[in-house]
């Protein structure tokens, strides 16, 4: 498929070197621009990554037991997810893709609601009043154009806050990806577009997704900042988002591409990654595990011990157990309740159907 012969034309683009703060062995890269974080915050970043990894493993088990419904595993992407959310302000607004449950839970959505969402219960999406997120988006790219609207709303309300939309490498091929960035650029909105390039859109590799030099380069078309970052390096991700936030508040959106990898399948609904990824490739990415890298760094600084690690794993397991129980104990949705949620006030035909379903 496609043009096999080399055409006499080359697209000339500047090379972008991925931002990196931590080397794979957990030492600081020379000349690296580390994020502005205290020792306590470094510990917290580590804690959240370990917690999220454990939660992910438990969620995969719960799915297999039939106690969770749709679930998109996150292991491997913790640096990109946790690092980017960690440097947001509480009133910054997150427009997540379907895999981005960790960011919205760390931003305030109670875990049991994430479980309810997975179990197909409407209460899952009832975001608490002081939590500034949308529900995970199913239509790839829709959250990117909505992000521009959220950002405009924040700007009109004179908030010093930004809106951030998450998507993946596949999402960057959608028309909405360009439309959202272009609206944000043309209107000078406080927006950040964060692409977790985990190399595959379900089974389709990056090589079939685009011939662009990188996804970050696509920012040029929208006239906004484009940044490439090592997505297995939580400090590099945090630094990139911290900087993007400052620019966003000044009216210059940023597209950040974080190069990462999902260790697990696309979702728990029958995807088998061995059909499209080699063992060697998988192993090579697992050697770049973002948790290992950060753990080496914080351990060397004397900020993290094996006991800390065990305590966090246990806490995460306990929390998951408590929240799944809570989710399971919530009363089932009802059809009349569903009908009621269609409009602010049920029109006659809905009112009639509510009565019929009771």
């Amino acid at each position: 498929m496609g043009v096999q012969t080399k055409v006499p034309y080359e697209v000339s683009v500047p090379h972008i070197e991925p931002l990196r703060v931590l080397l794979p062995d957990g030492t600081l890269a020379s000349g690296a621009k580390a994020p502005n974080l205290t020792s306590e915050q470094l510990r917290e970043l580590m804690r959240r990554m370990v917690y999220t990894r454990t939660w992910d493993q438990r969620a995969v088990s719960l799915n297999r037991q039939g106690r969770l419904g749709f679930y998109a595993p996150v292991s491997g992407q913790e640096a990109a997810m946790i690092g980017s959310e960690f440097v947001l302000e509480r009133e910054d607004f997150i427009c997540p893709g379907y895999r981005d449950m960790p960011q919205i839970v760390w931003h305030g959505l109670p875990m049991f609601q994430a479980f309810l969402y997975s179990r197909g219960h409407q209460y899952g999406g009832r975001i608490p009043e002081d939590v500034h997120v949308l529900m995970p988006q199913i239509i790839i790219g829709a959250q990117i154009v909505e992000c521009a609207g959220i950002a405009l709303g924040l700007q009109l309300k004179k908030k010093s806050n930004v809106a951030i939309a998450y998507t993946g490498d596949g999402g960057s091929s959608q028309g909405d990806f360009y439309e959202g960035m272009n609206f944000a650029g043309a209107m000078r909105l406080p927006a950040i577009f964060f692409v977790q390039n985990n190399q595959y859109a379900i089974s389709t590799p990056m090589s079939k997704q685009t011939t662009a030099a990188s996804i970050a380069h696509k920012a040029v078309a929208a006239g906004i900042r484009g940044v490439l970052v090592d997505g297995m390096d939580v400090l590099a991700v945090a630094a990139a988002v911290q900087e993007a936030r400052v620019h966003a508040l000044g009216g210059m959106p940023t597209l950040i591409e974080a190069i990462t990898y999902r260790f697990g399948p696309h979702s728990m609904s029958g995807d088998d990654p061995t059909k499209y990824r080699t063992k060697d490739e998988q192993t090579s990415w697992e050697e770049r595990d973002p948790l290992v890298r950060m753990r080496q760094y914080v351990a060397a600084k004397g900020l993290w011990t094996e006991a800390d690690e065990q305590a966090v794993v246990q806490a995460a397991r306990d929390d998951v157990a408590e929240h799944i129980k809570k989710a399971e104990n919530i009363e089932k949705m009802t059809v009349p309740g569903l009908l009621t949620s269609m409009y602010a006030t049920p029109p006659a035909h809905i009112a009639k159907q509510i009565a019929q379903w009771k």
Partner: protein
Amino acid sequence: MTNMTMIEAIRDAMRCELERDPTVMVFGEDVGHVGGVFRATEGLQKQFGATRVFDTPLAESGIGGLAVGLGVQGFRPVAEIQFIGFIFETMDQICSQAARMRYRSGGRYSAPIVFRTPFGGGVKAPELHGDSLEGLMVQTPGMKVVIPSNPYDAKGLLISAIRDDDPVFYMEHLKLYRSFRAEVPDEPYTVPIGVAGVVREGSDVTLITYGAMVHTAVQAADELQRTRGASVEVIDLRTVMPLDIETLVTSVKKTHRAIVVQEAQRTAGVAAEVIAQVTEEAILHLEAPIMRITAPDTVMAFGQIEEEWLPSVARIVAGLVHVLDF
């Protein structure tokens, strides 16, 4: 009171609401500086500033996303989609995002958006400018669909739509924009969404329609009065979602006969739904099957045969005669 065209009434509704409610925003392609391709928003940017009335980049999905995001942030966007055929570019934002926002968020968020768009046949517009796509919207739970037939209703319904807490798809018939004037109050007022209007009372047969077809229907009713002395009750639906079945059933119980006229293609449209619901409620009162007068099941005809494609006075009269003689 001012004598206004429908487009002036639509503009006046936006002006009233921009003035009354600081969260109302008006935007779309060319709506700011020049005031829209039909001048529906003319002068509004000058009066309310470019922050509240503005031009967007040319991208309908972007416009829809902007509206949904603003809705979540507590604003009341009035987003113009320049022509009806362009809605497919933003169908996801209208149908899958805006209309589902209340449901998905368990009521935490809503999408109090008005999507305004011109549509309708009879003016020989280019293709994909005049289609009657209300059927698609009616099949979208969470959406309301409003189609005014005159300047008074246009203003009152648009004000209701802007104040509504749910998304409203507001369709403006191209043929009605400037075809006649009517008295419109200068102050804000509402015409309720979901309430049909009895345009003309009658006793022999009920003629149900909406949009520009209301005027064609009235002509057909006149002709039948003249030729047969038949008294036709003409009902303007005004809102096609939700339907005002009560008004229709009350009328049919009186006349025992009905026809439904729509510009849209025949199959699975508003007329089919009206007939199904009226039949469910009033079958024992009917003396004849309820007929549909519609466009055929083709894509909308190009300009050359547009008039033949659309329901005409003659076709409506023939339908009425058939039902009366059944």
